[in-house]
């Protein structure tokens, strides 16, 4: 099935064309924009948002939303940093568990998966609307982060761990590798597996999907768990890049991620959208941020401009779908 056949050829590439125009304009306005160094810079900066937004796309395709990704990112990053640095100590029982690098990463991913699972469980078992369930998780996970870190950053995590956020592999930053692999796996999931098909079916018409024998609750729980795992991946990336787990890391990341999904043409009512669209959306936001910084535009204006771009992209999308 060609999911991109949702839109005729020209409109399919509209985000791509927009990105192209943006890049041409910026390279004319600033001679620092079109350099290899700046290119890697942009890709490194957006890599975290790409990972989170891929998860967000899956959630939005089921007609859901996940507001908790920023907090899950912070908590799993903090868990990774804390375990790596201090392990788990239980002096009363004279117990100490140390963690290897791999162990901390796995632990962080498990934490992300568990919180995502909890979101999915609330949404399916107790019929809590996704907006509310994940809004609750937004504060819960943020609170857990504060408890875990006692409100202080956990820093100096060692060269090995920092390699994830700052190292290069085969001439490409490790951060970019991670987001590229995430995107490829997600594209395969969406286009080549039954689960991917079920995600579209549920977003398109949940009741029809149920009567077709699809296990709605299971699919939703998996999707929110994936969202949590990818937020944890983002948490590891952020922590490693800064060599520090900040208690307030990831604040407002859910908004950037929803913006990428929306600019990428995914419908918030579910059932329509693509992973690659979201990736383009994330790149557009990244390029815009980068360009505005290079042009010395005030950060306050940057926010205004970003908001207007979101509106514009949705308006163009609506106009196209009316014509079709």
């Amino acid at each position, binding site marked *: *099935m060609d999911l991109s*056949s949702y839109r005729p050829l020209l409109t399919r590439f509209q985000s791509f064309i927009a990105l192209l125009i943006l890049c041409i304009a910026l390279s004319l306005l600033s001679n620092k924009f079109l350099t290899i160094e700046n290119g890697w810079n942009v890709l490194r900066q957006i890599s975290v948002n790409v990972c989170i937004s891929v998860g967000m796309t899956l959630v939005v395709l089921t007609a859901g939303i996940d507001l908790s990704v920023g907090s899950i990112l912070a908590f799993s990053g903090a868990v990774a940093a804390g375990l790596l640095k201090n392990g788990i100590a239980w002096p009363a029982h004279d117990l100490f568990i140390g963690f290897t690098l791999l162990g901390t990463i796995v632990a962080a991913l498990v934490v992300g998966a568990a919180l995502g699972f909890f979101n999915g469980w609330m949404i399916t078992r107790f019929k809590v609307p996704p907006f509310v369930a994940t809004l609750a998780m937004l504060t819960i996970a943020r609170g857990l982060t504060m408890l875990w870190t006692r409100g202080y950053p956990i820093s100096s995590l060692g060269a090995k761990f920092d390699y994830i956020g700052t190292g290069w592999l085969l001439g490409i930053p490790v951060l970019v590798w991670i987001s590229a692999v995430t995107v490829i796996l997600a594209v395969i999931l969406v286009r080549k*597996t039954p689960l991917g098909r079920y995600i579209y079916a549920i977003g398109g018409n949940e009741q*029809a*999907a149920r009567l077709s*024998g699809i296990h709605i609750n299971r699919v939703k729980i998996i999707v929110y768990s994936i969202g949590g795992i990818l937020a944890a991946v983002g948490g590891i990336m952020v922590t490693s890049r800064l060599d520090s787990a900040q208690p307030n890391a990831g604040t407002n990341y859910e908004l950037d991620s929803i913006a990428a999904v929306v600019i990428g043409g995914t419908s918030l009512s579910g059932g329509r959208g693509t992973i690659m669209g979201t990736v383009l959306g994330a790149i557009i936001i990244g390029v815009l941020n980068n360009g505005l910084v290079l042009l010395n535009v005030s950060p306050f204006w940057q926010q205004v401009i970003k908001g207007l771009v979101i509106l514009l992209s949705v308006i163009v999308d609506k106009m196209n779908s009316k014509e079709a």
Partner: protein
Amino acid sequence: MLVAEKIGKRFTGVIALHDVSMQLRPGRVTAIIGENGAGKSTLMKILSGVYAEYEGRILLGGREVRFANPKEAQEKGISIIHQELNLIPDLSITENIFLGRELTDRWGLLNKKAMRERTAALLRRLKLNVPPDTLIRALKVGQQQVVEIAKALLLESQVIIMDEPTSAISEAEVEILYDIIEQLRAEGKIIAYISHKLDELFRIADDFVVLRDGRVTETGTMKTVDHDAIVRKMVGRDIAALEHHRTQADAAEELLSVTALDWQAGNKQLLKNITFSLRRGEVLGIFGLMGAGRTELLECILGLHPGEHTGDIRLEGQRLDLRSPRDAIRAGLVLVPEDRKKDGLIPGLDVKTNISLSILRSIGRNGLLNSKAEVTLAEHYKNSLRIKTPNLEQQVRHLSGGNQQKVILARCLATDPKVLMLDEPTRGIDVNTKNEIYKLILELAKSSLGIIVVSSELPEILTVSDRILVLCEGKISGVFPRATANEDDILKAAIPKTI
């Protein structure tokens, strides 16, 4: 008089209406007849202001009118009652009727008393005996229909267009609707009436306009034509009557048995002591009025309400304990739901994807999708069910109702079921496709499937069933073998004794 002159309308690449001219006269009911896709809905949407762009002109009372939107059409006196009701469930009858034209007092605040009184008067006139403050949610579909009519009356509409008004209401409610139409006719209103049910048109309509492929092929008065002539004009040829000659079902083994099924929801007894069985190769028709428990029965069998009902359901002697439609499909039970838009289709996905949805895992390889097998599967059903679609990548929302129904049927058949349940299989489908679906049902029964057809249309039940089960207020009120079944007895069994 409402006159349409040379109305034309094209959508990208398709001509929906071509040179359509007709006259609707006051005090008469004009039937607008045609197959799905003939252009009826498009024409009505132009008349009621939904489509503002069209060729030709519309004259109302001799003056040309052109509406930018439905509200303008209403103000000029044309109201449409849509097939899908346009009411807001959580607002009251009064609030719905006055929506967008609320009465206010001199302070600009809502004049609730005046609105309530006028609503009450309208409801009395339409013989709907409920308080004006009742929420739409609490009304039956038939009653909601009456509220739509009340809305049109409030507007003092000269022209009232009814699009399939009886498709969702029970026979008893249809009678009330007919009374209302009589009354409107006597008041000199212009009434356009769209329906697939020809018997209905012969009863209620004075004039007719036949549309085929976006053109008017014939106009006249109902008195001058008969049933077959109308069908010929619609389809452009004769439809062979369906032959139903099968007797072997009696001897076949029992496939599905339901024993003492009870379902109590709150203080409402939805199903009471339902016991019946279905044989291999048998078509069991289930008839009942609105609220008789038809859909509820199918839902229980399908495992949609696990743990809420008691009783014993067995398939091939094995007791079933289904927790979800997924379990049901695995066991070999599958349902073609009543409301295909709401429960059947994934409108934005293509034909192929809609067909393969239920069996993706079993035709997949190594946990991945197998698009070749999907194409083969969809191609197979496209041919065997004669699904008319330009290609398999077409989004199902663009197909006609009949073809959408076939897509859902294909999805169900792909699961290789033992029992196929169809809830109102031909609702809103034109005569021609209807007959095709009946033929399919009978063919499928020959292949030793057990089939249950639930319908509120008697002719349909009588056409396809080997045996007819009548439900009334959640109980089985009659069982008729095909040989002795007739409309009168079935209706008598279906109508509650105490009202």
